[in-house]
Structures are given as structure tokens and as C-alpha cells.
């Protein structure tokens, strides 16, 4: 008779850039309250339901995969989150966003991004914009009151872009059901951004890409092309 294993898996965590930023601004701003799980580097196509040794071996190729170390850039982590769904689920969550691309032709011009989940249902989304130097992102509707939300009902916008630094593009995250992206491009070059929208309850993602066109200089002054 063998011994039962009572082992607890112990792992060390590293702070992300966002975590360091929060910690640097004071321990009161560093408050971990939620966890999520992911399997970013796995390929489920390696699951082999035809393995001749039986069901125990179906996942053999996946289970022996050595996992890579964590990196500190939070925007590159937790891409594919595990999700809790009822047993007997067949169809996965699909998040889409309208529009999927947009062009802003003058400073202050804006667009509203409207995400949705198939099948249609109200829920919260997390939107992250990768360029806060030239764009701002705000949630225009904070909550839809839809059912099925399993996280904080009190989620609020979480803006953390640096705002300064002409050459550093920092990310900014907002939580809501609709989002407004505004151009603040006063530069003489075309700038772009990508907004990644993730369903808070589903983990499904969709992206929208945007461009802010150059503010054309004419006769020594700035003139909008609008």
C-alpha cells in the first residue's frame, strides 16, 4: 500500500511591471484580491484520445511539457485564461467588437468601441490600449447590470498610463461595457494603437486597431487635415 500524497504545489511569483508600479506608489495601492489561471503555452491538439494505453495517457504529451519562466510584461501574460463553465458546455465564448478598426483625423476626435459576446448577453469587459502617449481610453458605461458576473460589482476604471514621455508607450486599462478612444495626437506623424478587449467573465478577447493621422503643418502653423 502506497502513501497518499498531501503535497501542495508551491510556486514563487514575480511582480509584473504594473505590480512594481503599484508597489512603488505605495503599499496601499498594491492589493491583490483576485486570481486567474491560464495555459498560454499549451497546444490542446496534443491531446490524444486514441492513445492505445487508455485515458490516463491521453494528455501525456501535454503533461510532460516543461514550462517557460514568467516574464514581467503583464500585457504578454495570461493570454488564454482558464474558464469555469457548466459541464456539458459545447460552444465557447466569442467576444467581438465594433468597429474593429478606426481612424481619428484630428486631436480630440474619438470613437466608441462596443464589445459584445456571442450569444448576446450583458457583461463587463476589460479594455487595454497599448499607446497612452497619443490616445486616451475611458469606459463610457461602467456596468450593464447583466447576470452572470462573477467578479467585483464595484470594478472601476483603472487608468495607469504614464502620460508623459514622448517615446514611451504605456498601456492603460479600463473596465466597462463600452469604451471611448480619443486621439491626442499633436505630432507630425501618424500614430497607431491597439485596443484589446477581454470579457471579464469569459476571457474571450477581441481587438480593435486605430490610427491617428498626422496633424499637418502648413505655413508655419498647425492645421488639421479634418
Amino acid at each position, binding site marked *: 500500500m502506497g502513501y497518499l500524497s498531501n503535497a501542495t*504545489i*508551491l*510556486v*514563487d*511569483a*514575480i*511582480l*509584473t511591471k504594473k505590480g512594481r508600479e*503599484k508597489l512603488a506608489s505605495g503599499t496601499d495601492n498594491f*492589493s*491583490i*484580491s*483576485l*486570481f*486567474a*489561471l*491560464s*495555459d*498560454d*503555452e*499549451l*497546444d*490542446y491538439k496534443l*491531446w490524444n*484520445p486514441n492513445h492505445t494505453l487508455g485515458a490516463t495517457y*491521453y*494528455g501525456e504529451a*501535454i*503533461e510532460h511539457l516543461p*514550462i517557460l*519562466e*514568467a516574464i514581467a510584461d503583464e500585457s504578454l*501574460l*495570461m493570454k*488564454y*485564461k*482558464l*474558464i*469555469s*463553465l457548466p*459541464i*456539458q*458546455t*459545447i*460552444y*465557447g*465564448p466569442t467576444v467581438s467588437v465594433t468597429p474593429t478598426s478606426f481612424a481619428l483625423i484630428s486631436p480630440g476626435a474619438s470613437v466608441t468601441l462596443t464589445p459584445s459576446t456571442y*450569444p448576446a448577453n450583458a*457583461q463587463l469587459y476589460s479594455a487595454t490600449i497599448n499607446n497612452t502617449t497619443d490616445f486616451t481610453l475611458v469606459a463610457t458605461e461602467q456596468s450593464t447590470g447583466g*447576470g*452572470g458576473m*462573477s*467578479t467585483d460589482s*464595484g470594478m*472601476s476604471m*483603472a487608468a*495607469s498610463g504614464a502620460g508623459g514621455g514622448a517615446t514611451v508607450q504605456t498601456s492603460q486599462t479600463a473596465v466597462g461595457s463600452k469604451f471611448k478612444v480619443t486621439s491626442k495626437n499633436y505630432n507630425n506623424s501618424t500614430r497607431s494603437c491597439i485596443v484589446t478587449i477581454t*470579457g471579464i*467573465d*469569459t476571457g474571450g478577447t477581441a481587438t480593435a486597431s486605430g490610427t491617428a493621422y498626422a496633424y499637418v503643418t502648413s505655413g508655419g502653423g498647425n492645421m488639421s487635415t479634418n
Partner: protein
Amino acid sequence: MATSTSNSGGTATAVTTVNSQIFTHFSDEDIIDSGQTTVTENVWSSEIGGTLTAFFTSSVQVSSSGDYYYDVYQTTYSATSAAVQFAIAYGNAQGSGSYEKFTNMGVSGYTPSKAVYFQYANILLPNGTSRFTVNGNSINDFIAINFQRERVKEVLDPGNWELTVDNGAGVITTLVDSNTGISESSVSETYDIVSGSISSGIYSSTSPVYYGKAYPKYGMLIFDARVLKNSASIDIAETEHSSSESNNIGTMFDAIKAGASFTARNKQTIASQYYFVRVKNNKYNYSNNPTYWVTGSLRFADFVSDPVSYITTVGLYNDSTELLAVAKISQPIKKTKTTESLIRVCLNF
């Protein structure tokens, strides 16, 4: 949200709304503050073992600020991996041992060595005290070794450093601090520097030769220049030169280089927090991984009744779903509706 089927008599029937979940709240008992842990490690650049055996200076730095200090590197300073390990300075309360750098002041004694002496005195000595003392004797001049702050981290680990100096004429002296061989949890402001070794302890422990003072919280070692001269035969000159440098810093550097052995460790206190990630049997059995689905449907029919997922990463978030910390697991953990997982995540900061 996702479309699911209800299990009715073994027949799958489509329904339109179900609850789904990505994030789980920690409860109060899931987060444990374990207090503080003390960690010690080698102070030198990571490619160096516990002992620094090669010492280099930078001609650029020496020519610009060598009157005051020499930066010491672990390799040729022009090498890409070169990094300052520590600095050597010479201080003299009268201003001797270095030349009159500021001749336009018209007052003698305002030399780099004097500036250095009182720079260190102001930092290390109590208010109102202007002279260093070793074993009750006032120090007129000293050699200072000053570790890079990032190497010392919180404190230089007392009792865990050892410096060998060689005067180049056969006199080799090994220096440690008076905490060598003694275990104590707290770190004092100062320790005496004596001859000895980490492995054998203090030489002549009942009547040691006192070479100076160690200031572990500052990452500084102060050596009485006269004791270095008299007991270690290192020729520290006090002569005041009007136009040339005594090069006491260079003399000490040569002695350290010839000794070819400098061991030191730092010490820091790390706060640890443990997060108990409890993954219940009916949670996280599906994945958003694109390989999990084929055109929106489960890739494998078996997953409809017996879904399987694998955990490779734990993400720790705040209420705004900002990812603050992440932990990777060495091998994927299989998750099914009949299994639960408990992952203890340790976060040090």
C-alpha cells in the same frame, strides 16, 4: 457567457445563458503574511563566485576623480561585463597625503584627503564627533572601502567578509570583522576590523590587532592607515605634497590586488506573502486557449461530459483586474471535474 447544453436524460439540449467565471476572489484566509525572511548572498557581480580575486581600475575614472577615490572593477573596465564592485578612498584629518588641489584658496590643507575624511566622518560618526576612533585611539587618516549600494542591498553581512592584503614584500594580512564566528540576528552599527579569517575566526582573539571599523549598514569599511602601515606593512604616506599625489589610494589598491582575495556577502530582509490558490473541482475546467476549440466548439467530444484543462500559470490581480504578479508552474497541472488543486504562491518583495 457561453452557450451550454443541459444534461437532460442524456440528451444535450441547447440553452442560451450560463454563468461563466475567469476571476476568483481570495478569501481572507487565503492570503497569509508570513512576516520577514533574512537572505544573504554574494555581493559581487553574478559571474563571480563568493570571492573576488581579480581587481581592475579605470584610467578614465582615476584621471577624473582619482584624487578622491578609485572605483574597482572585477574585469577590465572597458569590458562589457565590467561593473564597479567597490571603491577605495583615502581620508586625512589634516589634509595630508594628497596635494593642494585648490591652490587659489590661499589656505593650505584644503585637500581631497581632508574633504574625504570629514565626508565620511559626517556620515558615519555621531553628531558632534569629528574623529574616528579604533580601540580608543583617534584615527588621523584612514583608507575607506565603500561597497556599491546595490551590492550591499540592506547591509553588509557582518562576520561574512574577508579581505586579504599583500604589501608586495611577503607580508600578507587577512582581515575580518569582530563578528566573525558569532551568530547574531540583529546587526550593530559598527564592528571592529581585526586580523583573522572566516573559517578560523579572529587571530589572537584575546588581544587582536585592531585595524579599523566596519559599518555594515552603510556598506563601508574604515581602516586606520597607521595600523595598516605598522602591522600590515602597507606604505600609506602622510606627506603633504604641494604638486603631487601621495597615491595612498593606489597603494591600497595594489595591496588588495596582490592579496587577490576579497570575500563578502550582503544581507537583506524580505517580506513574503503567501496566496493559497484553491481551484475547486467544478471550476476552471475549460480554457480560452484557441487550440481548445474548433470554430467555437469543443475540439474533443470527450470534453463535453469530462472537460480537461491544464494550469500552467497563476495570475494575481487587483480589483481592477490589473495583473500585479504572476507565477509559473514547472509542469502543467491537469484539472478535471473530479480533481481539485491547491497552489501556494509565494510573493517576495
